[in-house]
Each structure stands twice: as C-alpha cells, then as structure tokens.
C-alpha cells in the first residue's frame, strides 16, 4: 500500500509546512486587473475600502518606520516629496502598516500620527493593517513596497520605489523613481512602461 507510506509522509510534510508557515503565501495580485479590495481603519478610526475610492487614482505605500530602507526615503525627504507631488496631482496616498501586534514596526494610532507629524509626511491617510489581511491580499513583501492603482481601480504598478535597492541615502539622487515614472505614464494616458519591479527593503512583519 503505497498510499499508506506516502500518506504518512504527506501528513508529516503538511504538518511541518504549517509549523513553519510555509506555503501559505497568497496569490499575487495582477497588473491591469482590478486591484484587491480592502477594508482597513486609519489612525482616526475611519474605514477605507478600495470600493469607496471609485474614480480616484490611489498609491499604496507599505511602511515600517524602523526599517533602514524606509528611513532612507524619509530622512532624505524623498518620500514626503513624492507624497506631496502625488496628492497634489489628485492621488489618494495611503501608507499601510501591516506589522502585527507585538511585531517590530507595529504602532498605535497616536504613534502613527506622531510619526506623520514629526517626519513632515503627507499621506492622505495611514492605514493600520494589524491583521495583515490587506498586506497579504496585495502580496506586500517589503517596506517600502509601492502600488499604483488607476482611476478605474486597476493595478498598474507594483514593486520597488526606485531602481537603487540600497539603504544609502546617497543613492536617491541617481535613481529612477518607478512611482514617479508610473504617474507620468498615467498622466500622459500611456500604459505604465515598467509595471512590475523587485520591491526592496525589510520584510513586512506579518
């Protein structure tokens, strides 16, 4: 009975995999397809859903204030500048914190607001995705991990903020900012030239 033998192995492997949290990665979202919906509260207790943003262009930024790659873009003012540029161009900018309770980067609503104030950040809202449901739906892997959604609710960009995957602020000057490029393509009515890139940074602390 081959099955008996194999089944023992299977049960073992499945149990092991479950223990390690392996193989539970969710399906990745797709470019030019409707972006996954979400329902997450912001620091003011308001609930945000993608369905409630119909007709608006949206940028999602996964963040973790302690991650050196996030620090690179905030300490240099790069992220804040991009946030202002985007919101002035009519984008809804949502910064998402998916760190689970007790994990590094997890903050209370008040702490998140303090971070926004002290860093001079300009997102439309900061979402507290403590359950990680939104992060998993988007397959968000790193901080920062950037997503651009067009006004029809389709995902048009996902990946890194730029093409210099380092934590060194000096690299910002010579980098091509993929989010800015995607915004330019959308403004010109063109499809996004580079819709998928490698996100770089620290892992999201689910």
């Amino acid at each position, binding site marked *: 009975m081959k099955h008996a033998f194999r089944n023992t192995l299977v049960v073992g492997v499945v149990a092991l995999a479950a223990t390690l949290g392996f193989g*539970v990665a969710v399906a990745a979202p797709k470019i030019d397809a409707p972006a996954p919906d979400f329902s997450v509260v912001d620091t003011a207790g308001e609930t945000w859903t993608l369905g409630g943003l119909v007709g608006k262009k949206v940028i999602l930024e996964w963040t973790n204030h302690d991650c050196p790659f996030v620090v690179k873009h905030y300490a240099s003012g790069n992220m804040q500048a991009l946030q202002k540029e985007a919101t002035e161009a009519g984008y809804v900018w949502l910064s998402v914190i998916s760190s689970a309770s007790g994990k590094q980067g997890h903050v209370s609503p008040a702490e998140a607001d303090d971070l926004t104030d002290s860093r001079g950040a300009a997102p439309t809202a900061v979402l507290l995705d403590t359950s990680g449901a939104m992060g998993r739906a988007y397959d968000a892997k790193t901080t920062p991990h950037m997503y651009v959604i067009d006004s029809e609710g389709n995902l048009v960009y996902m990946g890194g903020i730029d093409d210099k995957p380092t934590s060194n602020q000096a690299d910002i000057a010579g980098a091509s900012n993929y989010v800015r490029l995607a915004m330019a393509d959308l403004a010109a009515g063109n499809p996004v030239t580079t819709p998928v890139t490698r996100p770089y940074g620290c892992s999201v602390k689910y």
Partner: protein
Amino acid sequence: MTARLVAERSEIAPGETVDLALVFEIRPGWHTYWRNPGDSGDPPRVEWTLPEGVEAGPLSWPRPEVIPVGPLANYGYSERVVHLIALSVPADWPIGEPVRIRADADWLVCEEHCIPESGRFDLTLPTGAGAGARPGPIDPAQAEFFAAARVGLPNGRIEGAALGVAGAGLGLVIPLDELSEEIDGAWFFAGEWGLIEHAAEQPWRLLDGHLRIDLLPGALSDQAAPDGLLVVADALGEVRSYEVAAVRGPLPEEVARDRPIGLPLAFAFALLGGLILNLMPCVFPILAMKALSLVNGLSGQGPEAARERVLHGVAYTTGVLLFFAGLAVLLLALRAGGAAVGWGFQLQYPPFVVFMAYVFFVIGLSLSGAVTLGARLMSLGGARTGSGTAGAFGTGALAALVAAPCTAPFMGAALGYAVTLSWPLALAIMLTLGFGLALPFLLLSLVPQLARLLPKPGAWMETLKQALAFPMFAAAAWLVWVLSVQTGSAGVALVLGGLVLLAFALWLRERTRGLPSVRRRWGLAGTSAALICALYLGVATDRLTAPTLSEGEVSASGLASEPYSPERLAAAIDARRPVFVNMTAAWCITCLVNERVALSASDVARSFTDAGVLYLKGDWTNRDPAITAYLADHGRNGVPLYVFYPADGDPQVLPQILTEDMVLRAIRTSAPGSSGRDG
C-alpha cells in the same frame, strides 16, 4: 556581527591570482543574504580601490539556506559566511612592491529588523622579493579555513535544464546525468527576484533520467532569467549544489510514472522489509516454532544431520520465494490486464474490507491471549516437529501467506515501485522481499549455533505479544470506519454483528476443545455455524450501496459539491462554466488532508462562488468505472486527482499535495478580466 577580509597567501607574485575571503561572523538568529535575497533583504556589495592593473573578481556565493519569515522567505546565511574573491596581479607588477588594496563593503543583517552595516578593509600583500614569479606559500593558518569555505561553493554547473509552464505553475526539469539518482531532497534557489515565489513549496520527483521540481511563478516569471542554484541532498544527507541555467521551452512529455526511490534503494528496502516481516506478530510464532523444532529436532552431529538441516532451510526458502513469485505474477498479470491496480483498490470492495477487519480482529484476539490460534496454524502448515522437507516448504509458503497482510507499512514503497517497473525487475524486487523473509531461518539452518544468539524466551515475550494486539484492533477499527463510509450504518451493523459472531465462534471452540468427543463435535458445529454466519454478514455488505451525496449538498469542506459524472462535466464544459474536479476516497488520507488544508478555507469557497466554479467530487471509496476511466485518462491509477477546467483554455492538473494557494491561483488565473501579462 563581525566582518573581516583575509588573503589565502601571505605573499603574492606578479601574473598570479590569490583568493581573498570576505568573512561575516553572524550573531545567532541574524542573517545576511545571498545574491538573490528572496522576498526582502539585500546582498552584500563591495567597492574596490585597487592599484592600476590589479583586478578583483566578483564575490562567490556559497549555497544559501531558505529563511522563512512569516508568509515570506529569504535566501541567506546564518552563523558564518565566507565570500571568496579572486584577486589578480598583472605580470608586470614590480617585484618587491607590496600590493595595497582597499575594500568598502556594505551589507544588510536582519533578525526581525534589519541593520545596514558597512566596513572598510585595507590589505597589504607583499610580493615575493627576488623569488621570481612564484606565489608565496599558502598560509597554513588560512589553508583549512579556505578549504572549508570552498565546500559550500557550487559543485558544478548543469546544462540542458528546461523551465516551462505547467498548469498554474512552472516546471523545472533538470537532466540527472550530473546528479546521482539517490536524491532525498531538492530545492531550487532562483537567481533573480521575480522568477518564482520564494516561499512556496517545491514538490519534486524523479522522472526517467530527470529531476522535476514544481515551482510557483513569481511576479516577473516570464521576464526574469531562468537560472539559479539547485541544492540536492542524498539519502546519506550529503548536500551538493549546482548552478543551473535553464532554457525556457515546453517541458518533456511527462511519463505517468513517478519513481519515489531509486533501484538499489528499492532492493535494500525490499530485503530489509523482508527481514522485518520475521518480527511481525503474524509470522514470528511460526518462525519461532520452526526454529525451535529445527534446533531441537535436528541438532544431531555429523554430516547426515547437517545435510538435513540445510535441506530444510533451502526448502523453507523455496516455499517463501515461490509464494512471492506467485504474488508478483498475480500483480503483474493484473497490471497487464489493464486492471486498475492502485494500492488500496481492494479496499473498494466492501466484503474484502470486512474480511480484513475480521482477520485483524482475530489476530488481535490471538495476540491478547483470548484464543490460541498458533497450534492450528502450525498444523495447517504441516510443520509439526520437522516432518521432512515438504513440511518445511509448506511452512515457508504459510509464513509468506500470513505475512502478506503485514507487508503494507514496511513494503509499501518497494511494492509500489515494483509495480511501475518492467516485469523482470518487478519480479526481482518481490523475490528480494521473499528472500529477506526467509533469510533468518536459512541462516539458522546453515549455522545452528546462531540459535544461541536469539533472545532468551521469557515473560517479556508474552507482554510484547499482548501489546501487539492493540495495533491489530486499531487496524480493525479503521477498517470498520472505511466500511461506514462505503456502506453507511447498515454495513457497520453487519460487520459489528460479524465480529461478535466471530468472537463467539472462537470462544466456543476454545471451551469445547478439551471436552469428550460428543460435546466437542457440538462445539465444532456451533463454531462453524457462527463462522459461516459471520462470513455471510461480510458478503452481504456488497449489496449495500454507499450513502449518496444529494445534489448540491454542502460537504464538510464548506464547498457545495455535486457528484462527478462524465455527462455533468461535459455539459459544464459545453456551457463554458469553469469546473473543479476532485477525485477522492474515504480511505485516502492524502485526499482528506488536502480537503482540510486546501479546500476548506473560506477564501477558496468565496473564489469558487465568485468565479461560478462547478465543484464536482468523484468518490472512489467504492468501485466506480467512470472514475477509474477518468483517472486512467490522466495517467493515474489512484486518488487524489485534482483537475481544474477554466471557462476557456486547457484543463490543469493540480499537484497531489494541494495548498490553498494553488487552488486560488488556478481559479484566479482563469478569472475573467485577468488576462494580464503574467497570466
């Protein structure tokens, strides 16, 4: 953590190359990263400041490990990693002038959080004075260190690998020429981000001359370079790694035959399994009594007695081997006849299940001491005190016969393997199994002195024997459960009634054995009647039908399913409705695990509903020619089988070990409006 840069030689020579090592000693729990760091992280980088003409090669990347981080995975290193760098000095470098180099390294080290670190390393390497163009001696203190560092480097490069789309995933097919066939574990590290999902499982199997690994495609799977590092472990735990440069293209036609273990290993398992059979509660009493009779009855000195002992041993071995040969021929004949020989297929026949439950129950009773069966079995084998070679032959055949039900857990792999082989090899495997069973007795007959090595009989044997009754009862309980799925509560009532009758028959036989002949005859008659009734109840289960699933019934998995029928499937395909087919059986544990793990999640139920998927469930617990034919169409002879038919496009066969992710992915790739670039 600490970092340093060291050279293998204390002196270098013009025109030569010296190996440098960038060494990271990493605190426990922290990691640095491979060239593709996986889902996050960053590999170390080095900026060199070198004199003109001196060149530093790229960093070497020892074999990494997979570091799971929640639902994500990184490729990296823990404890210590050594990156080697080849430094070459031009031929016209002035002798005697030291080479001064500087390395500015940046690296990221992460535990839960990450710290970017950097270091500046200055090295001054003297060039040999007057010694001409000869490199200095290898620094003995460094030699061992460098040798250890090289162990982790790739063992070679494999050409001719193919990467292609397979259903909802990717298949990587690697020629085995370079690898040994005795692979016990395999993992593919993608060389670039985006090729695969780093955290996904990588089921692998050996096909004719190839290793095949199933991968989940990443976000850039059609653009990322199809290369990386293959890490394989053999049965002894030795790990080797190979650079793999795959070519994108269609995968070779997959032969529906997996080889979970290699040929030499199968023979070893077969022999070992045969040996273990001797310890089985159903074989051991026979062997023990036979051995005792041999030692006691034939312990005479001289060539005559020795000759008779050997004759006994050979006859016994022949009996065992003939039985196994017969079993092999039967098996192969069934296979040749096109019968659906999937292991467990017998369990589709309810009377067989009942019969097996009876067998295990009686063996259990016998072991626990409630009844004594040994003597009768022995006489059945014609093995009363050494009654000649014919008796020995009979005992051998009997031992093999009673061993057959016990073979499953030990022999499963070897037998399963044998069925897939050409018939001479299959026969050889079966005979090896038989030889393993016969071996202890054969040895005893050749060297009777070995009997002294047998453990001394004593009270422990009785305790062990009684303890062994419980696995037998457990097996009987499991079989009753299988029957309950096949025939519903009526079948359970029949089998439980049969078990009571069986116990009564054995008790009656036991009580009346020593009585005067008339009463004994009554006892025997009563025993026989009860036995016949029990058997009749068992056969009667065949007329019962399984409790049928009514249409649209919500199964335990929370998904509304309909019973599979070819007509229903064809109709849905015609209507361009997506269909998910699940072929399962109550006695298939893999199926049940998959249904719990992958098919019961609310996400799956929702995605089925959203995509309007028709869920067809084929229950192979009982024989069903339509399902057998469907399995055969897909090159299978057993369950589970999962096939997803998108509304348009080719059906996809999903892996036998299913995850929620695979199901969601299959449904999503076919969902309308998702014909995106990586669909």
